[in-house]
C-alpha cells in the first residue's frame, strides 16, 4: 500500500540524457503502465524507482518519503524482471522465500507464506524443482510468486510477459489483472505492448525519447491523444494523420472537407482520424477524404481498406466483414465529426477547436 511520486526526475549517462523531467504520480493501489517504444527510457525510469539506478536529478517519493538516497534493499519494493532472474542454484521454494527470509527470521512463517502463495498461483507441485526444470511460463510464475511472497509496498514489472508465447501472454495478462485486484497493491508495469497497456492499466503513461508524452486512463488517451506521437503509437492500425489547411470553419484535407469551427483560419493542422471512425459514403460532397483503393486486408472479423488520398501515407479504413470495397475503386470517406482530432502541424501537439491561439 503506497503512493509513488516522481518529481522532475532526470537520468543522464555521462552527457547522454536517457530520462528528462518525468513527473508521474501513482496513487495507492493503482496499476500504472509505462508504455513506449524501445529505448524511450521506461526501464531506466523503473530502475530508478527500484533503486537500481541513481537518480541524476529530481525527487522520488514512496508514501511521501524521499527515496533518492535509500538503497534498493530498504525501499520495500519487489520487481519482476523480463529475464525472471531466478536464482539457478535454488529450488522454487528457496527462490520464493529468499527475500522474505532476509526480513523474517522465523522459518515456519516463511514456509507457510511460500506455500500459501504457491497454492494461489498453482506452483505447489513445482516447489522442489530448480528453475532449469521449469517451462518459460512456470518460471514467469515463480518470478511473480517471489514478488508476491514479500508483500511489498510497490510491485515493479519490466516487460514480464515478453518472453512468453502469445496464448500464455493472454492468460497471464488476465491473471495479473486478477492479482492486482486481489492484492489491491500499487503496481508499476513497463511494456512496449499497447494491448497490455490498454487492457491492464488503470492509467498509462506514454513515454517518448525519455519524456512523458501523456498520462491518462487508457481509453482517454486512446480517444484524445495529446500529440501525433501518442496518436500514432496507440492503436493498430494507427490513427490516420492527414495534413490539412483551415479556412473559414472548414478543414481541407486536399481530397475532401470537414466543417469545424474554432480553428484559426489559414493555419496548417494535422487531421487525426481513427480507422474505425471512417465510413464509406456515396456522396463526394460529404467526403472528408477521397481516393483510390490500393490494397485490401480481409482479417475475418473486419476488413482494412488502404486508400491513396494523395496525402503521402495511405489512409486506412477499418470496416466490417462486408465492406463494399474493391481494389482500384475510388471511395469517398466520411467520419463522425466529433471523432476528428486536430494537431498543430509544427509541434504535433493536440489542438482543441475553440482554443483561441
Amino acid at each position, binding site marked *: 500500500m503506497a503512493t509513488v511520486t516522481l518529481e522532475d526526475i532526470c537520468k543522464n549517462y555521462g552527457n547522454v540524457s536517457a530520462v528528462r523531467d518525468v513527473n508521474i504520480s501513482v496513487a495507492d493501489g493503482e496499476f500504472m503502465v509505462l508504455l513506449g517504444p524501445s529505448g524511450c527510457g521506461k526501464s531506466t525510469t523503473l530502475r530508478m524507482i*527500484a*533503486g*537500481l539506478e541513481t537518480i541524476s536529478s529530481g525527487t522520488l517519493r514512496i508514501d511521501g518519503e524521499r527515496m533518492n538516497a535509500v*538503497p*534498493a*534493499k*530498504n525501499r520495500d*519494493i*519487489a*520487481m519482476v*524482471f523480463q*529475464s525472471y*532472474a531466478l*536464482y*539457478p*542454484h535454488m529450488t522454487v521454494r528457496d527462490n520464493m522465500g*529468499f*527475500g522474505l527470509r*532476509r*526480513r523474517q527470521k522465523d522459518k515456519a512463517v516463511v514456509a507457510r507464506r511460500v506455500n500459501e502463495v504457491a497454492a494461489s498461483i498453482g506452483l505447489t507441485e513445482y516447489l522442489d524443482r530448480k528453475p*532449469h526444470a521449469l517451462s518459460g511460463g512456470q518460471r514467469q510464475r515463480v518470478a511473480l510468486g*517471489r514478488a508476491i511472497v*514479500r508483500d511489498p509496498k510497490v510491485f515493479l514489472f519490466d516487460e514480464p510477459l515478453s518472453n512468453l508465447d502469445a496464448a500464455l501472454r493472454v492468460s497471464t495478462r488476465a491473471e495479473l489483472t486478477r492479482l492486482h485486484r486481489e492484492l489491491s497493491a500499487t503496481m508499476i508495469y513497463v511494456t512496449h505492448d499497447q494491448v497490455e497497456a490498454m487492457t491492464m492499466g488503470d492509467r498509462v503513461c506514454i513515454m517518448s525519447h525519455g519524456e512523458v508524452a501523456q498520462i491518462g486512463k487508457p481509453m482517454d488517451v486512446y480517444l484524445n491523444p495529446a500529440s501525433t506521437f501518442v496518436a500514432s503509437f496507440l492503436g493498430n492500425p494507427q490513427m490516420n494523420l492527414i495534413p490539412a489547411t483551415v479556412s473559414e470553419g472548414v478543414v481541407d484535407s486536399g481530397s475532401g472537407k470537414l466543417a469545424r469551427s474554432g480553428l484559426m483560419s489559414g493555419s496548417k493542422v494535422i487531421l487525426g482520424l481513427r480507422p474505425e471512425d471512417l465510413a464509406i459514403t456515396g456522396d463526394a460532397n460529404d467526403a472528408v477524404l477521397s481516393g483510390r483503393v490500393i490494397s485490401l486486408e480481409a482479417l475475418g472479423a473486419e476488413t482494412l481498406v488502404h486508400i491513396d488520398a494523395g496525402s503521402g501515407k495511405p489512409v486506412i479504413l477499418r470496416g466490417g466483414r462486408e465492406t463494399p470495397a474493391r481494389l482500384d475503386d475510388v471511395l469517398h470517406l466520411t467520419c463522425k465529426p466529433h471523432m476528428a482530432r486536430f494537431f498543430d502541424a509544427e509541434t504535433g501537439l493536440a489542438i482543441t477547436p475553440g482554443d483561441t491561439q
Partner: protein
Amino acid sequence: MSARTIAVPVSGAGLRMAALLLLIVVYTLYSTGPFVWVAAMSLRTTTEIAANPYGMPWPAHFEKFASAWFDSNYDTYFLNSVTIVLSAVALLTIIGGMAAHCFARYRFRFKSALYFLIFSTIIFPPQVTVIGLFQIMVDYGLYNTRVGLVLVYVSIQLPITIYILEAFFARIPKDLFEAARIDGYSEWSIFWRISLPVAMPAIATTVILNTILLWNEFLYAVVLITEDDKRTLPLGVLRFLGDQLEDVGMIATGLMIAIVPVVLIYVFFSERLIQGMTAGAVK
C-alpha cells in the same frame, strides 16, 4: 565347422571410430607408460632395479611404503603438503573469488590498471623472481616457514584464479544480482549467496587446478624451505639423493606417495573439471 568367412560391412563411421580408438589407445600407453614404470619401481629395491630396470615387481616390496612413511619422514611431508596446499587453495578461492566478483561486477577507478598489475606478474618465469622473493622472505621472517610458503603459493596462483573466475562471474546475468539487491541483501551476502554458489563449476575448476599445481610444486618449496620437518612431499626425494648414491627404488616409492592423491583427484573430479572449463553461462 567350415571355414566360412563372414563379410563384415565396414562403414565410414566405423572406420573413423576405429582410428580414434587406436589413437586413444596409443596415447594412453604413451602417457601411462612412465607412470606404470615408476609404480613398478616403487615396489622393487634399488638393487633389483639396477639388475633389470624394466623388470616386474615380483616379489612386491610393499614394506618400502611403510619404510618411507615411518622411517623417512614421509608422514610429516604428507601432513605439510596437505596443510600448506589446503590453506593456500582456501585462501585463493576466497580472495580470488572476491577479486573476480569485483572485477566482473563493479566499475571503479584504476580497474584496468589494477587488473594489469595483477597479471603483469605472470610474464616473469619463477626462476627470475625467486631470488628476489627469497630476499623478501628473509627480511620478513617468512623464510623457512610454512606460512611463508602458503603466502607465496597464493600470490603465484592468484592471477590465473582471478582470470578464470572473472570470466565466469562476468557471464552471470546482472539481473540476478539486482534481484538479490531488491530482495534485501547486501553486496557481501550477495557474494556468498549468489556469486559463489552460481559459479560453483568455475570454483571447482580453480580448486582442482590449484590443488594439483601446488601439490606438485617444487621450485619455490626447495628454495624457501630448508628444514626437513617443514618439507612438502615433492621435496621428499631430496632425502634419497646423496652425493654419491641415488636410492632410485626409494625415490620411486616417495614419488608414488606424492602422486597417488593427484591421481585420485583426477579420477573422482575429472568430470567436474571438464564441466567447469567448458561451462556455458548460467541460463
